[in-house]
């Protein structure tokens, strides 16, 4: 009998601990920041704490979906998130974000006007999000293994490079490029168009060597694959490791994406949060972050501080013409998302 009471007591104790464990701790001087992996120079976090005394609890996730799942589960009270266009739109729609008080900023104007306009695709009044990095999705290929220059998504689908293609292991990227290839909008909610894209991907699957995320670039660098669908930032590093590699945004157009910072509704100390965001906009910090990540930056002071050769790198600072046919992904319709997820599962199972 005693035994049972003991067990019951322990059970209750554990329950209580697990329930109260989520309670907010000292939020005054700590910010919980949630970002993609390898998307902020760790030294900058140290520098920020040194300068302001505000501690940063830093968490990372690999995909916007993973980030959303963790954020929504509420287990950890995140103050700041850095995520992508369509996910930002979803968070804004769900009323999860706080307006950013730009009057507290000193370095906001380092972000070029072009990128504030760009943000309007998902944040129409530029109220909730601060642009951080941007880029395109394209093909990274080994020039020694293909005839001539590649300029179309067609090479991924025509079977010519069967077994030498690495696709992105992500529902969105896979469908977006296929939709662009077929001439649709990448934000399409049309069932027939999505079905067509699925069939195209299904037909392509035997030609695909692998669906990878972070390793996609490395496989081309190592010579295991001829081409891979990658983000523009990966392309810059790929080219550095292996100068035979070229990156192209196909002529049919592609996805141009923007990752931005936002402050969540949970955030208790918005002043500290703004300080952190302003810090990220500062010339020296933006430069350090850029040199750590090598994605295209909306911070215009960075380009001025770079050596001549890097300033002219087209994968980092593309001409406006390169992004002409590109679209920002703003798809948040839950039914379409569900359909895409289901089709992706079917594709992988086949």
């Amino acid at each position, binding site marked *: 009998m*005693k*035994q049972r009471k*003991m*067990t019951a007591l*322990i*059970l209750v*104790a*554990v*329950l209580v*601990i*697990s329930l109260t464990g989520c309670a907010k701790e000292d939020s005054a001087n700590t910010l919980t920041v949630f970002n993609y992996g390898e998307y902020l120079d760790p030294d900058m976090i140290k520098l920020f704490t040194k300068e302001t005394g505000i501690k940063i609890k830093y968490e990372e996730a690999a*995909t916007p*979906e*993973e980030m*959303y*799942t963790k954020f*929504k589960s509420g287990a950890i009270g995140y103050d700041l998130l850095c995520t992508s266009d369509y996910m930002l739109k979803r968070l804004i729609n769900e009323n999860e974000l706080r307006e950013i008080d730009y009057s507290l900023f000193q370095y906001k104007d380092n972000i070029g006007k072009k990128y504030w306009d760009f943000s309007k695709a998902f944040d129409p009044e530029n109220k909730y999000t601060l642009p951080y990095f941007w880029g395109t999705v394209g093909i990274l290929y080994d020039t020694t293994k293909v005839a001539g220059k590649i300029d179309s998504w067609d090479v991924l689908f025509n079977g010519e490079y069967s*077994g030498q293609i690495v696709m992105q*292991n992500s*529902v969105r990227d896979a469908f977006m490029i296929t939709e662009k290839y077929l001439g649709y909008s990448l934000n399409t909610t049309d069932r027939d168009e999505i079905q067509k894209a699925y069939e195209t991907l299904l037909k392509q*699957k035997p030609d*695909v*060597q*692998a*669906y*990878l995320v972070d*390793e996609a670039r490395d*496989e081309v660098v*190592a*010579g*295991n694959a001829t081409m891979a669908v990658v983000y523009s930032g990966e392309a810059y590093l790929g080219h550095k490791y292996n100068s035979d590699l070229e990156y192209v945004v196909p002529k049919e157009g592609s996805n141009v994406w923007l990752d931005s910072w936002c402050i969540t509704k949970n955030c208790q100390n918005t002043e500290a949060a703004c300080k952190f965001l302003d810090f990220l906009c500062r010339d020296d910090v933006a430069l350090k972050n850029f040199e750590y990540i090598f994605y295209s930056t909306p911070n215009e002071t960075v380009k001025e501080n770079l050596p001549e050769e890097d300033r002219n790198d087209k994968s980092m600072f593309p001409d406006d013409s390169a992004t002409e046919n590109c679209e920002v992904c703003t798809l948040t319709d839950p039914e379409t998302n*569900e359909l895409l*997820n289901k089709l*992706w*599962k*079917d594709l*992988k*199972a086949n």
Partner: protein
Amino acid sequence: MDKVLGKRSALAGPYVIWAVGFTVIPLVVIIKYAVFDRSGAFTLANILSIFAPVHLKALIFSLEIALGCTLVCILLAYPLVLAISRLKFARSGMMLVILILPMWMNFILKLLAWQMILSSNGVLNLIIRSLGFAEFDISNTPLSIMIGVIYEYFPYMVLPIYDAVTAIDEDVIEAARDLGAKKATVFWRIVFPLSLPGLMSGITMVFVPSMTSFVTADILGGGKLQLVGNIIEQEFIHSMNWNLGAGLSVALMIFVLISMTFTINKDEREEEEAW
């Protein structure tokens, strides 16, 4: 006597807290998610969706991989154990250390190393090419997933069998020999039946985890092949459908429990027979 026993079982207290907090409560939460749909109504659809063609296909593929791996592990482990259990202690200890050594390394690192070895420009093909043979590409195939899984779980097969075999009393074997049993008879009538409990726990420790090692499938299968674990992961992380993910987990759990009761029953029966 009762009092002593009562006090002693209090020693299990720390672990009980652990088990309740990290096994029992999560299990209850998972079951809760599994039997409700997104709107909060009771349903068995999530659990029964294991029979949907896509899920069933992944389940069957997982079973094939798990069965294959378990079989290969047994075929490699059993003879190895027989060999090292005869060695002098120092040498058998050395063998066991070599066997356990890879277990000290991070699981993901091991998989990435295998990826390097098996990829088309990898170490394996480099050797094959330099020997003048035609290269072969097994990266991103079920075979490469199996290699990863076997490498990971092989020690879990060896150790329990080793334990069971070394626990066999030499006197029993000698008694059999005195009574005129030949080597083969000694093995089939004495050693093998007595090692069965070890074999069975080896099987459960290899079979069950190999069905769900989704990271292995992702890294060595190139994301083209899905174990049931990959589907559960996708439902939780990407589709945000925790109910379906939990339902599939529960279905898998039921499945595993059924096969476990089968092996456990067999276990006990064999033990009785042996004596």
